[in-house]
């Protein structure tokens, strides 16, 4: 196995162009497990760790651009205020060791339906910046990024450079169900983001379909039902309907972690719960926004 260590982003793109079969490695918390279990045997690893820019973030035109190599730990430390949903999700990932190594870029690269960063990225309308030497860079909306179980829109010669997302303008919540309190793959998960200025609601469903996905019908329904101006308390029937629509948007399976029926039920619970949390926060912030 060849171990490629580009010193810069440009060099990384060069190497990826030259060796499209090279497997990028950032934190290695997915890649090394797969190699250990002999699930894949890459001829080449492309180590992105030397590319320092990948672990930094910046703001341009009011939009955050977060490097693909930023670890969960640094994201929690530096971006909790701007990306509360993603920060909450990051806190539930693995253990301290995994959060110190694992990155959102790696989560995107793996594109597992159970990846915890996907629901908040979907709910916040994130876009994924990918780039190749041949075709330059492009922005892929999160909704178009996930294409199948562990498959994404990334082309073989492309690398993920960053994700772009507007800082939260309203409440964002993430909730995950697992069989234990740490080191646990989600049985199912859900993220919600309220966008009061646009009077819109974003959602993301995890671990309950072949890909992470949004619950479009639920979003439209609730955006229309919410009393954005008066910020009146939620009608329980509306909350219940929202939960139903979210559950309907899923297409879960039975597996070792839970049954499909359980997942559908639990998603409804998570949807109602996160909506309630988000709306309460929205009501509290009546005077500040």
């Amino acid at each position, binding site marked *: 196995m060849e171990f490629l260590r580009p010193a810069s982003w440009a060099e990384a793109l060069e190497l990826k162009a030259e060796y499209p079969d090279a497997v990028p490695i950032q934190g290695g918390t997915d890649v090394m*497990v797969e190699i250990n279990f002999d699930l894949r045997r890459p001829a080449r690893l492309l180590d992105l760790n030397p590319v320092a820019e990948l672990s930094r973030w910046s703001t341009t035109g009011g939009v955050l651009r977060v490097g693909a190599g930023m670890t969960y730990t640094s994201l929690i430390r530096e971006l909790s205020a701007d990306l509360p949903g993603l920060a909450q999700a990051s806190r539930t990932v693995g*253990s301290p060791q995994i959060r110190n190594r694992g990155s959102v870029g790696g989560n995107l690269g793996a594109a597992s339906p159970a990846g915890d960063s996907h629901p908040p990225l979907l709910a916040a309308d994130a876009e994924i910046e990918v780039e190749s030497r041949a075709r330059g860079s492009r922005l892929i909306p999160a909704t178009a990024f996930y294409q199948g179980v562990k498959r994404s829109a990334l082309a073989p010669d492309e690398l993920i450079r960053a994700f772009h997302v507007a800082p939260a303008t309203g409440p964002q919540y993430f909730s995950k*169900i697992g069989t*234990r*309190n*740490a080191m646990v793959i989600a049985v199912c998960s859900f993220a919600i983001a309220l966008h009061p200025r646009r009077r819109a609601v974003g959602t993301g469903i995890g671990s309950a379909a072949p890909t992470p996905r949004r619950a479009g019908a639920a979003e439209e329904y609730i955006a229309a039902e919410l009393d954005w101006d008066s910020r009146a308390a939620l009608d329980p029937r509306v909350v219940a309907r929202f939960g139903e629509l979210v559950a309907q948007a899923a297409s879960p399976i039975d597996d070792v972690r839970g*049954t499909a029926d*359980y997942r559908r039920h639990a998603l409804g*619970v998570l949807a109602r*719960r996160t909506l309630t949390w988000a709306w309460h926060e929205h009501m509290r912030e009546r005077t500040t926004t």
Partner: protein
Amino acid sequence: MTTVAARAVGTEADRVEGLEKVTGRARYAFEHPIEDMVYAAPVPSVVARGEVIAVDVAEALTFPGVIDVLWHGNAPKLERVGNAELHVLQSPRVAYRGQYIAVVIAKTLEEAREAALRVGVEYAVERHDVGLRADHPRLYRPERVNPDLPADVQQGDPDTALAAAPVTVDAVYRTPAEHNNPMEPHATVARWDAEGLTLYDSTQGATSLRDAVAPLFGIEPSSVRVIAPHVGGGFGAKGEPHPPVVLAALAARRTGRPVKLAVTRQQMFSVTGYRTPTIQRVRLGAHPDGHLTAIVHDAVEQSSTIHEFAEQTTTPTRIMYAAPNRRTTHRLVRLDVPTPSWMRAPGEAPGMFALESAMDELAAACGLDPIELRIRNEPEVDPETGLPFSSRNLVACLRDGARRFGWADRDPAPGVRRRGRLLIGTGVAASTYPVYRSACQATARAEPGGIFTVRIAAADIGTGARTVLTQIAADVLRVPLGRVRVAIGDSALPRASLAGGSSGTASWGTAVTRACEALRDELDRRGGTPSTGVTVSVDTTEENGEPSRFARHAFGAQFAEVGVDRDTGEARVRRLLGVFAVGRVLNPKTARSQFIGGMTMGLSMALLEESVLDREFGDYLNHDLAQYHVAACADVPAVEAYWVEESDPHLNPMGSKGIGEIGIVGTAAAVANAVHHATGIRVRDLPIRLDKLLT
């Protein structure tokens, strides 16, 4: 000799090898550096039943680094012993998926593993049967159950008593297959030389492993040496010998080179034993005031087709509660599965889950507090044998636990305590574990400089045994701890029983005591230590052989508080508290670790642990720690362990009962009972998965 007052026993002595362990100097089986070593990678069967009709080793042999490939066609012949699991590579038959059918030996681990994938195996596949059912046509009654107990025991007329009982409970409880999963996987370095075979192995018993391996190779036990100074956990999985150590020895014999074999975590799910799944029916008959008239506990379990391991699931029921009419039975079916073995209180842990859940159901049926119910059924003497108990402080544990836990004001109504979205409940269960002791030998030596060395082939698998034996020796010799060295973990030392059945300290401690007493006498006789030092040896066979006039068991009570999310069914333990009656506690620090470790395993058994069988392929789906969930630290927010004063002169010179396993016994039932109290849902099949708590 200078004497000091006895004082080491009972103190919180630090682990004597603690520094070695935390600095990484302690050597585990895999870490012994040996010249000229080669690596073995086993080839597991990919079918659950059938025959190997051809093994093609040609490709594997062309791989760089490969030294040899062994399979049943070319492996050195082994002698037959009682356990056919150990007849590794001796026959083309496949008895379970994952069974070793070949092994590649190569210069590096990577080369061996790679080549192992290239061994071509052709099977004549037969239809397998891996499903345990209570109505399986091939159920039979084993002759004896582990360790050597009658399969069925009956007193009085339980059927008539049940039919006549005003209050009855009749329920079926299930526990899944579970895997021990010690932190350190099984590993062996095997080397043959002129003296015979040396095994660096991760084992719970150097002597017993030596005695098991020697006859396979047709050699004297004295020609086998097992070295195991440190063991990273065993929980029973390193008690009985398993195929990997034999395979390593076989590979070393054939190649003439030292061979290292480390079992992968995944392979541990087929070749290192596990807890049998159980289907248990418990029937209780009682008066309305809770007094039991009948107890019937029937267990159905499995073993492999090649070796019988019959777990003693219902044996704790024989001694727990008074009832004139009683029956306990075990039925077994031989399936195309790996052979189960000892795991964390085999028998007691699953059996007491059923019995103590049933007692909770009976308490509800009688409208009695579950503690009061147990107190009312406290037997005067051992209900099975009629012998008096050497000491039995279950009631004291229940009462002390109730006080510490805050049981007094408990509202028995299920499903009514809410805290936010959580339903809160509390539960209690009793626990018990038998007192075992085995014969051992030990030597004690005085050096002229005032240093004493005690030698015994005991094992410290993380329990603190080395430390406690040092304390025992220091007190008998009446010297400070720092002047005593205890050598263990090597079959070249005086023979000792293995670390199992919570019997280590009792067995080894007796021998250490007798050796140190004999040495003290010898030094008194000589008026001091001669310039060449002096050594004495003892053997406790005679002392240990004396039959006891008492029924000897440890007891305890566990209390659990759980919170169940009523919408998602997520159950979490908020508090665990155990009180134990275990004779004299020799080192409160290591003892507390044993208790809280045991209770944590019980929590894990209640909520998480389950080896999920793939019926189609006949193996376990979740064969790694990402999918086989063991409780993480975050799942155990508060766990407390206490013990009551118990002075029992009928045990051993230390006055101690075993403490390694009792912590897990009862805990799962306490959690399940608390879940019932929280939600009103009685989960009778473990683990209590979230989808079982949705109504």
